[in-house]
C-alpha cells in the first residue's frame, strides 16, 4: 500500500516537473490565436464590427471583449469557422452590425466626381486613385467592398456594384440530393 502510494507520488512529481519544464522550454511566443482569428476574418477592414479593422476585432475576440458574430462580410461561414476555432456555439449574425450582402466593389461615377479626395482618405486599402480636383477611380481588384468610401462622398457618386460572375469565377453548384424526394 505504502509502496504504491510512494510510486504514484513519485510519478506525479516527475511528470509535473516535466510538464512544468516543457511549458517554459517550449513556450510559444506571440499570440497565435489573434493571427488565427485574423486569418479567418475577410480583411474587408470595413469596421462594421465596431473595431477599426480586422486585426483589432481579432484582438478583441481573443481578449473576450467582442463576440464572434459581428462581421457581416465574413457572413455565416465566417462565424462558423470562428466558432470552430474557438470551440464556441455558432450564433447568427448580430443584426446591429449589419447584414450579409453579395460581394461588391465600389464604383465611382466619373461624370459626377468633383475630386475632393475624401474617398481616397477613407479607403482602408488604398484602392482609390486620384488627386485633388482630379477625377478619382476605384482599382476594382483591390477593392474589398467595405463601403467606407460611400458615406464621405459629398456628391454621392460612389455606388456598390455586385461582382458579376465570369468564366474564371464560375463554379459548379453543390449537387442536388434526390435521396429524400425519391419514391
Amino acid at each position: 500500500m505504502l509502496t504504491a502510494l510512494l510510486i504514484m507520488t513519485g510519478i506525479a512529481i516527475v511528470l509535473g516537473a516535466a510538464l512544468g519544464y516543457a511549458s517554459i522550454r517550449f513556450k510559444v511566443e506571440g499570440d497565435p490565436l489573434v493571427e488565427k482569428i485574423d486569418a479567418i476574418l475577410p480583411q474587408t477592414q470595413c469596421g462594421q464590427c465596431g473595431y477599426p479593422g480586422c486585426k483589432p476585432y481579432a484582438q478583441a475576440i481573443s481578449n473576450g471583449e467582442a463576440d464572434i458574430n459581428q462581421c457581416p462580410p465574413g457572413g455565416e461561414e465566417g462565424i462558423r469557422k470562428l466558432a470552430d476555432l474557438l470551440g464556441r456555439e455558432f450564433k447568427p449574425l448580430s443584426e446591429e452590425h449589419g447584414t450579409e450582402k453579395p460581394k461588391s466593389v465600389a464604383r465611382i461615377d466619373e461624370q459626377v466626381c468633383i475630386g475632393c479626395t475624401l474617398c481616397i482618405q477613407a479607403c482602408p486599402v488604398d484602392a482609390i486613385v486620384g488627386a485633388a480636383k482630379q477625377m478619382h477611380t476605384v482599382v476594382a481588384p483591390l477593392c474589398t467592398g467595405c463601403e467606407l468610401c460611400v458615406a464621405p462622398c459629398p456628391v454621392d457618386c460612389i455606388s456598390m456594384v455586385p461582382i458579376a460572375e465570369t468564366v474564371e469565377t464560375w463554379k459548379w453548384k453543390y449537387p442536388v440530393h434526390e435521396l429524400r424526394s425519391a419514391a
Partner: protein
Amino acid sequence: MITRLFSFKGGVKPESHKNESSGTPIQKAPLPKRLVIPLRQSIRSTARCLVAPGQRVLKGEHIGEGEGGLGTSVHASTSGTVVEIAPSPMAHASGLETLSIVIEPDGEDRWIDHTPLDLHSVSREEALAWLRGCGIVGMGGAGFPTHVKLGGGRGIDTLVINGAECEPWITCDDRLMRERAPEVLSGAMILRELIGAKQVLVGIEDNKPEAIAAMQAAASGLGDDISVVPVPTLYPAGGEKQLIRVLTGVEIPQGKLGTDFGVQCFNVGTANAVHRAIRFGEPLVSRVITLTGNVARPGNYEVLLGTQVSELLDLAGPKADTDRYIVGGPMMGTELQSLSVPVSKGMNCIIAASPALFPPPPPELPCIRCGACARACPADLQPFELYWFSRAKNFGKAQEYHLFDCIECGCCAFVCPSRIPLVDYYRFAKGEIWARERELQASDQARERFEFRNFRQEREKEEKAAKLAAKAAETRAKLAESGEAAAPAAETEDPKKALVAAALARAKQQQAAVTPKNTDGLTADVQAEIANIEARREKLNPQDADKAP
C-alpha cells in the same frame, strides 16, 4: 520502335457508338449566314479585339490579339463584314457570355494573302510565335495553346500523337486520320522538329482499324522512329496521361508537365492544324466536328469556327424527340444551354440526345462503399472517399486524398451501382477550393495593403510632427532675434503652445485689420438693409454682438 505496351489501372468499356458517324467522309459545311467568333479561344485568356463594326475582313485576317502568356491570335473564318462586337454565349458548362465578333459573310470566302513558313530559315522561338499568330491551340478539348506546350523546352525523347479518341460517339479524329493521314503526320514531323523528339508514337484505339491502316501506310515512308501503335480500346485511353502511360510507361503526376518526363503529347487535330499553319501559313479557321446521336444524317463536317450550332444542326437533321444537345462525348461533355453557341477550336462533337438514347439516371441511393468506382478509376484514386469528403465539404481532407489528381473522366459515376453523380461532387469541391484560394489571396492582399496604409499614416504623422517641431524651433529663434524675450520658460516647455499662441495673435491682428469694405457712400436703402441683416445676425448669434461694427 515500340516493343511493349503498358496499361493503366481501371477504365471502363462503354458502348462505342462510333459506327453511326464514322461511315461517311468529312463534308464541308456550307458557308453560314452569320459567324460569331468568341475572343476567348484558348484556356484562361481572352484576346483583344482588333476590328471595329463595319470593317471588312478577309478569311484568315487577324481580328484578335492574344493577351498574356496563354493568349493566342483569333482570326476571321471567312471574308465579310464585322457587324457587331458583343457578348455572346459560349460552349461552357456555365453558359456564360464572352465578347465575340459577329461577322456577316460576303459569300466569297476569300483568303487573305498567306505564305508558308520555312522552318529551316527561322529560329525555334520564331516558329512558336508563328504558331501563336496562327491561333493554334489543342483541339482535343481543353484548348491549351500549342506554342506554350511546345515552349516547355527541349530534352524531349518521345512525341506522342493522340489519335485514341476514346469517348463514345465521337469520330472526328478517326475520319481525319483516315482521310488526311499524310497531313497529320506532316504536322507530327513539324512538332517533332520543334521539340527535338527522338521518336514519334501515334496511339490509336484498336477499334479504328481503317484509321490505323491509313496512318501506318502514310508513316511507312517516314522512317523507323515513327510508329503507329494500336492501343487497347479502354476508356479513357485517350486521356493525355493515360495514353502516355500506355505508350511509354511514364506516369505524369498531377501538376507536372510531360516535358519534365521527356514526353509531350498532341492531338491529331492539332497536328493537322500545325501542318496547315506551317506548310501553307493558314491560321486555324475551321475544324472537323462530329454531328451524331439522335439525328437523321450523322457524320463529320468541316466547319468554320464561329458557325452557330443551330445552323450546324440543320446539316444533320435532329429528330423530333431530341430534348437536349451534348457538346463533347457522353462521358465528359457538357449540355448546351443555348443553340446560338458558336463552334470553337476545342469543340469536337455535338450529340443530339433523346430520353431513349440517354435515359435520365434513376434516383440516387446511398453509397455502399462497394469499391466499384475505385476499381474503375484510371487515376488510382478512392473516389468514394473523395465523394464523402466533398459531400461533407471537408475540402482539406478531399485534397489530402488527391482530389486534384482526378481527371473528371466519369468512370466512377459510370459504374456506380448507387447512381451517385460522383463527378459533380468533385467539380463542386474543386470549384470551392479554387474560390477559397482566390478569396484567401484577396484577403491577404487586403491585409497587407491595410497594414501598409496604417504604417504610412503613422509615418506621415511623425513626419508632420517633425516638421512642426522644426518650424517651432525656427519661430523661437526668430522671436529671440527680435529681442522679445517674452516668457521664454513657458516656450521651452511647450513649443506647440507657443505656436498656437503666436497663430492666435496673428489671427487677432488680422481680424482687427479687417474692416467692413464698401460701406462708404451707400444709399439709405442699402444702409437700412445692412442694419436689418445685422439685427438678424445679432438675434442668431448674441455672443457675437460685441463684434458687430
